[in-house]
Structure formats: structure tokens, C-alpha cells
């Protein structure tokens, strides 16, 4: 990965030095082995801290909303899923294409710290680095090699766009799409859908009973980019603040409806949910329905056209009795 970091650091430093951008968003390492927060690099010197490691998963694109306001042009490193977030902001007119200098990073999948902790005694882990198809896990008393494929994040197992879909420069060659992603994509949704109606309700209310309304899923989601969210508004009070099932269902249904046709399955909401709620199973169900009724559509690929729920066709089929 070091050559990768070298490319990242040099391209960032170059862009900053030449003044093409005044800010670059990337990732950097921090105290613990699994922490790769987003780095706000504003000078060539700071570019040295930029690192791209198996935990650089957080999507920096949503920071562009604020950054693009006070910077002429901003550089940003994007993996495949991140890049679809840029198309999301372009399609929502929250960003102009020329405000962003995009460095594309073909990504071979990010690692799940939970799986690493399950396989190795946590206090001993010092670093996990990528080495070709394998992972080099350095422990306080030695090191081990394992297959990356066994430790991937859930969202990377179903990733159909590892290569950035929009970029100004691609930093290295493209990577192949993992085989079997299509079969996996809606597997969990189908397994929930097959249950009886009362079982489904029990399943979902059990998941949502843990929702503490921390809004992490909304605040990290590039599709939730409104200036003032209805959930924060008092009059009319769309969402009550009580954390009972009625308002939690209200919140989850309304948010899923708002991102319907705009969510590009980056899976971040599910990954960072502290309550472990399988949110992708909800968003992907809507994607399945949109494909089924209004024709296959993948969000975050073509910012020019209208999202499925922003337009219509006279001959659309209906999910209800139209007699």
C-alpha cells in the first residue's frame, strides 16, 4: 500500500502547491489501528499525513457541502462508493462539478474491525495493513497473514462499483468487480420478505426497538443533504421526539421514503448505526420495488437525469388496484 500512499500524498501535495485546490479531503491514521478519520489537508506539508489503509471507509464527500461554501475548489479522494456520493450531490444541485477535483481510487474492499477483533485478541493488535490479496496483521507479539476476502465489511461484499464512477484522475488501475455480488445484493431483503407478515412486523419492531434516534444514519447519508431536516422542525411537528415505536417507525419510513430512488447503497447508515439495525435491508427493498415497477435504475451514476420518484411515465404500472 505504500506506493498507493505515495501516489496519494504526491498528487495531493502537487494540487495544493499549484494552488489548484485550497483543501484536500482524504484519510489519515489516528491512535487505534482501526481508526482512519477523514483528514482536512490545507497545505502541501500536511499532505504527508494522508494514508489509504483497509479502514479508510468513511465517505468524505458529505464534508464538501460545507467545504465547497468557503473554498474555491476542493480536492477529494474517493473510492467507488464514495464517488457515487458526488453524483448524488450533483444531482441534488448541492455541488457544481467544477468545484471539486476528484482523485479516483479503485478499491478492493474495506476491512471490518469487528471481524478482526473476533479473530485476534484486541489489545494485542497494533496494525492491519493490506498486502496484495492478503492482510498483514501486526500484533504486539508477532504478526499473521490472512485473506482479505474473509474480513471484508458487509457492504463491500455486495459492492458492484469498486471503481470510481466519476473522477478527474484515477490513481491506479481498475479492480475487477467481486463475483457473486448480484446474487448477494438482495439476498437479505428476500429472506425478510419471505417471512409471514406478523413475523416481519416482529422482526422490524425488534430491530427498531433499539433505535435511539441518534440520527447518525441521517447525518452521514449523502442523500440526506437538506439545509433543515423536517425531523428538526417544530411546526408542523412531523416527528415526535418520544422514542416510542410509533415515532421510530415514522422516522424510519419517512427517511427510507425520502432517500428512495436516491440512495446508492453505500451501506454507511447500517455500518455506523450504534444499535446495529440492518438499514440496508430497508433501503434495498425500496430499490427492488423501484426496479420492479419503474424499470431498473441505479442511483448515483447519472447526475443529469431525474431520480425515479422525481418523474413519471404515463404508462407506469401501479402497486395497487387501478380498476
Amino acid at each position, binding site marked *: 500500500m505504500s506506493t498507493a500512499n505515495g501516489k496519494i500524498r504526491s498528487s495531493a501535495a502537487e494540487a495544493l502547491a499549484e494552488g489548484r485546490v485550497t483543501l484536500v479531503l482524504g484519510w489519515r491514521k489516528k491512535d487505534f489501528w482501526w481508526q482512519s478519520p477523514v483528514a482536512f489537508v490545507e497545505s502541501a506539508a500536511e499532505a504527508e499525513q494522508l494514508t489509504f489503509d483497509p479502514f479508510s471507509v468513511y465517505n468524505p464527500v458529505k464534508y464538501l457541502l460545507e467545504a465547497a461554501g468557503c473554498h474555491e475548489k476542493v480536492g477529494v479522494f474517493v473510492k467507488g462508493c464514495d464517488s457515487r456520493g458526488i453524483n448524488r450531490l450533483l444531482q441534488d444541485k*448541492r455541488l457544481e462539478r467544477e468545484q471539486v477535483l476528484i482523485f479516483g481510487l479503485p478499491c478492493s474492499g474495506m476491512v471490518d474491525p469487528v471481524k478482526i477483533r473476533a479473530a485476534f485478541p484486541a489489545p494485542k493488535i497494533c496494525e492491519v495493513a493490506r498486502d496484495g490479496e492478503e492482510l498483514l496483521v501486526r500484533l504486539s507479539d508477532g504478526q499473521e497473514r490472512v485473506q482479505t476476502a474473509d474480513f471484508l465489511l458487509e457492504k463491500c461484499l455486495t459492492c458492484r462499483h469498486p471503481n470510481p464512477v466519476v473522477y478527474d484522475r484515477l490513481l491506479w488501475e481498475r479492480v475487477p468487480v467481486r463475483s457473486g455480488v448480484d446474487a448477494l445484493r438482495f439476498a437479505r431483503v428476500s429472506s425478510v420478505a419471505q417471512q409471514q407478515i406478523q413475523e416481519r412486523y416482529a422482526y422490524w419492531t425488534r430491530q427498531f426497538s433499539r433505535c435511539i434516534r441518534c440520527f447518525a444514519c441521517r447525518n452521514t447519508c449523502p442523500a440526506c443533504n*437538506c439545509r433543515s431536516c423536517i425531523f428538526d*422542525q417544530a411546526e*408542523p411537528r412531523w416527528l415526535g421526539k418520544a422514542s416510542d415505536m410509533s415515532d421510530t417507525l415514522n422516522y424510519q419510513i419517512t427517511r427510507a421514503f425520502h432517500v428512495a430512488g436516491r440512495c446508492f447503497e453505500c451501506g454507511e447508515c447500517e455500518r455506523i448505526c450504534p444499535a446495529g439495525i440492518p438499514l440496508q435491508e430497508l433501503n434495498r427493498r425500496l430499490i427492488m420495488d423501484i426496479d420492479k415497477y419503474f424499470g431498473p435504475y441505479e442511483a448515483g451514476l447519472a447526475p443529469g437525469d431525474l431520480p425515479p420518484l*422525481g418523474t413519471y411515465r404515463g404508462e407506469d404500472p401501479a402497486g395497487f388496484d387501478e380498476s
Partner: protein
Amino acid sequence: MRRTGVFICWCGSNIAATVDIDLAVAAAKKMPGVVFADQNKYTCSEIGQEMIREAIRTHRLERVVVAACSPRMHENTFRKTVAAAGLNPYFLEIANIREQCSWVHKDKETATDKAIALIRTAVAKAARNEALFASELPIERRALVIGGGIAGIQAALDIAENGFVVDLVEKEPSIGGRMAQLDKTFPTLDCSACILTPKMVEVAQSEKITIFSYAEVEKVEGYVGNFTVTVRSRARSVDMGKCTGCGDCMLKCPVKVDSEFDLGLIKRRAIYTPFPQAVPNKPAIDRENCRWFTAGKCRVCEKVCPAGAIDYSQEDELRTEKYGAIVVATGFDPKKLDNYGEYAYGKHPDVLTSLEFERLLNASGPTGGKILRPSNGRPPKNVAFIQCVGSRDKAKGNPYCAKVCCMYTAKHAILLCEKVPGARPFVFYIDVRTPGKDYEEFYNRAYEEFGATYIKGNVSKVFPDGEKLLVRSVDALSGALVELEVDMVVLANSVDARAGAKELAQKLSITTNAYNFFNEAHPKLRPVETHTAGIFLAGTCQGPKDIPETVAQASAAAVKVAALLGKDSLLSNPTVAEVNEKLCTGDMSCLAVCPYGAISEKMLEERRGRETVRRKVAEVNMALCQGCGACTVACRPGAINLKGFTNEQIMAEVEAICL
């Protein structure tokens, strides 16, 4: 909360019969914000309205809720009442406790519960009503009339007479419509052409009216006072400026096809005018049949044309124009008789429809006005007229009565006897209907003076029997079976809506009933208006009717148009969308769903801390917005709201209705 007054109407007994008014008034008094509640036998009457005005003054009411009939009936009436007492008209809310409560629920207790719930909902909404003000809109002082039959002609003439410019669009190469095909008109038997042609000429000569013949409406946008209509003038292949209407081309053209005007009884040429008195009297080339266009050879008409007016290269012409009002007068089609095999129509030449018989009667018709049997060209002796073919038929036809057949059949009987001395008409009827001035007397002459035999017994089957036609029926009155050998059978087929009426309705965004006749705003009180402001109806496109009624409707529509165009400005609909720029993200998802293009981007300058920040927000053009509200749902943060139906109001209604 707002000081609210609730007025519950008895509507005579219509509401009071199944809603306990006293209970409702008592319940209303306890609703949040209600400081006054009362009842009245007829709230829409002068006394009722005075009671409201009085209550507003004495109790300093800020909101008024009237629980009575549907808002679609008297919302405007009560808005004027409330305005007269100094309140903004939009501080009024109506609870529909008649059409949607007392009339449809028989049990008094549950009907009262529901009425109270509907009142509570109206009170909750009224509490959140904001003052709304209609703004002034300019009016395009030009009218469009669609359809050049007698309805369209009369409307155009009357509008022009009121001093307004009119564009008259007609699908056929000439105006005249259905009436031009008629010979005589009942009950006066005056010749149809004699009373129609002068009006057609008057239209042609009026400098205020422009005729667009061989043309159809392509697209309609905009709203009352500001319609934008695109009309497609189909390529005529004849230069109207040069052509003198001499008709040489029509003689020499080698192609002979069925004449639609004469219902296929005789042929016409590929270059044709529908009938001799056509206005404009300039032919058009039927490109589907013209040899030049189908096989690429001939061009005879070009050679013989003295004025060099033939122009094969002509293209369809699309013209877009602004109009203040539109009159729809597109007429009707006679019902096709495909599923009426029992009358042997199409199997025996002497079985005709009434319009075909009318063409035989017509001097410029296929037989020059002589009644001759198509089979052998000799005048018929016995003629059977069968009524209600496809009308008053729930099973396989139109369930409604086509209104004009009884009268024109009496006319046919009379004219038959005049034209063919000794001819004997037999009219098989269910009921003879003569609902007009001098109609009954006209019908009496048919059987008294001219010896028509009226048999109450619908014919079950017509048996072609060599040259003759055997008609079998029963005389329901005497009970005698009837078996007649006749020389000709005339079927009085029903009146269908014009083919293509549905598509035109969608273009104009007006609605049609189950049989594709256009829906009038109110059958009794607003017969020539539609629910879409600025669009009016005249003639059979709105339902079967005879010429006197059609002309009356045409003049009525013309007055409505003149009243509208006569205003110096129009009050716009104030319940339009409104953007809260603080919440607006600028993602323009509202713009994408607006059917009227009423939303546009605006650059907003805003101070944030020390520097000014520029960001895009949505902006609504109050004139174009029609208040559909599709944008309010597309806007995720709810930044765009619909005045009169705001998110706050509807949420309050939902919460009140569920209590």
C-alpha cells in the same frame, strides 16, 4: 387559538333529518377556539348569511366554519359573506355534512358523530388559515373556438359581435359540421343549408374571426385568461391565396373514394371539398388516396389548375397563439351499428341509417334529393323507420335517450310522403318524445296529415327476403303481431360522443363522463362551463341535443367568454405554492414535478456572520402556479408549502379527524 364561529345548517331537512343539529352545536361549542356556535334552517339564504355577518361583528370572530353542503356548492357564497363582514375570505372553512354525511348515512347517532368529527376537522384547519389575497392577472383578449359546426359558428359570431377576436379551428376542410349534412330541420322544415350557409358566409366575412380549416388542436397550456394553444394546420396541398375555388381540379382527378360527407353513398375525388357550399370553398388533397402521394405519378390537378394553386410540397403548419378563453364545440358521431346484426345493416343495401336517409333527401346529396332504393334505384313504397337503435339500451348500447331521433323520424316520414306520393312510412317506436315548442304539433301532422303508421313495438329482426325486407314486430298496445314487407328500413341510430373526445379532454384537462361527453360544471346551474375556469362547452359535445338548444348554448358560451374577456384583469387563484427560503435547500426537486413550469431558480444573497453568501433557492411564479401541491411532497424538507392547503393545516385536520 383563533376566535372561531361555527354555523351548522339544517338545509331544510336534508341535514337535520339524519344529523342531530342541537347535539352538534353543543359539541362545537366545546371545540378549541370556538367562541360562538349556532344553527340555521337555510344558512345559504339571505337570512342565514346575515346571521353569520352579524355574529362576526358581535363576537369579533376571526375564523368562520360553516357546516353545510359541499364546498363545491357554496364555498364562494360564504367566502363573499365573510368578506362582506370584513374578514379575509380565506378565513372560512366548510364542513361537508350533507353530501358526505347526512345524505349517505341513515343512522342518526353515527351520522351525528361523523358530522361532529367533520366540524372538529374544519375548526382545526380554520385555526391555521392565513389571510390570502388574489392578485391581478392580465387577460388575453382573444378567444378560441374548437369545432366549426353550428355551435362553433354561432359562438364565434356572438363573441366577435362582442368585439373580441376569435380563432375558429375545424378538423374538416370546411366548416358547417353535422348540420351541413341535413336536408330540412324540424319542426319548421326550413332547409338546413338555407339557414346555415348565410352564417358560414358571415363567419368567413367577419374580420374578427379567423378560420383554421383542416386543422386540429395539438397542445393546450396555461390557465384562464392566459391559455397558450398550439394548432396543427394539416397540409392542404392547395395554396389558399391563389385558389379561386373554380373546381376544375375536382373534375379531372382520376381517383374516386367514398365521400365521408355523404357517408360513402357516393364517391368523391382525392382533391375535394366536402360539399358545394363549403366555406372556405377551397379543396384539399386527401394524401392517403391521392395517386401522387401514394404512387408518385399523376399530378393532373396541378396541370389543370388555372390559378397554379396546387402545391404538393406543403407541410403541416404548427402555430402557437395565446387565448383568454376556449369554447369547445366538437359535436357528435352517429353510433356505429356493429353489434346490431339483427337489423341486417350492411347486409342489405336498402337498410340505411337515418343520416344516410337524410343525405338521400338532400338536393345536393347522392340522389339529388330523390328517395330511391340503393338496391334497384326505384322509389320505395313501404318504409320502416326503427327507433332507439343503440339508444335506451342498457345491454349493448347507450343507456341514454338520444333526444332528437323521434323528431327527425317524424320529419323523415313527412318528407318521404312529400317526395314519394303514395309511400307509406311505418314507425316502430318505444315512446315518441316531442319535448319542444311546436314539436308535438309537428309529430301529429306526421300521422294525421301524412298517414304515417306509428307502431309501439321495437322490431326484433329484419329478414332480407330477396328484393323485399321482412320486418317482424308486435303492436304492444293492441297485442297484435306485426309482419310487414317493406322496401326500405331506416334505423334511427344513437348519438355517440365524437371519436377523440377523450384525448381532447386530456389536452384541455377537462373531464368526460362514462360516455366521453364533456362534463359541465353543474347540470342545472352552470351548463356551459367546465370545472376548468376559462373553458366553455356548446352543443352535442356536452350531450345529445337538437339545433335550437345547441344554438342557445353557443350564445350562452359566447356571453360567458365575453364576460370573461370583458374584465380588465382577472383575480388569480391565491391558493398557490410559496417557498420558505430559510428551509429551501435549492435542490429543485419541486421544479422537476411542477406541471405548469411555475417554479424557477433564484440566486439569494444572504449575510452569514460577516460575509454575504450566495445560494440558489426555488421561486414560484404566482401567475402560473395552479395550486396542485405536487411540489410540496417532492420537497423533502417541506420548504415549499401550498397556501390554503398547507402542511400545518392538513396535519391539523388529520389529527382532529382521528380524535
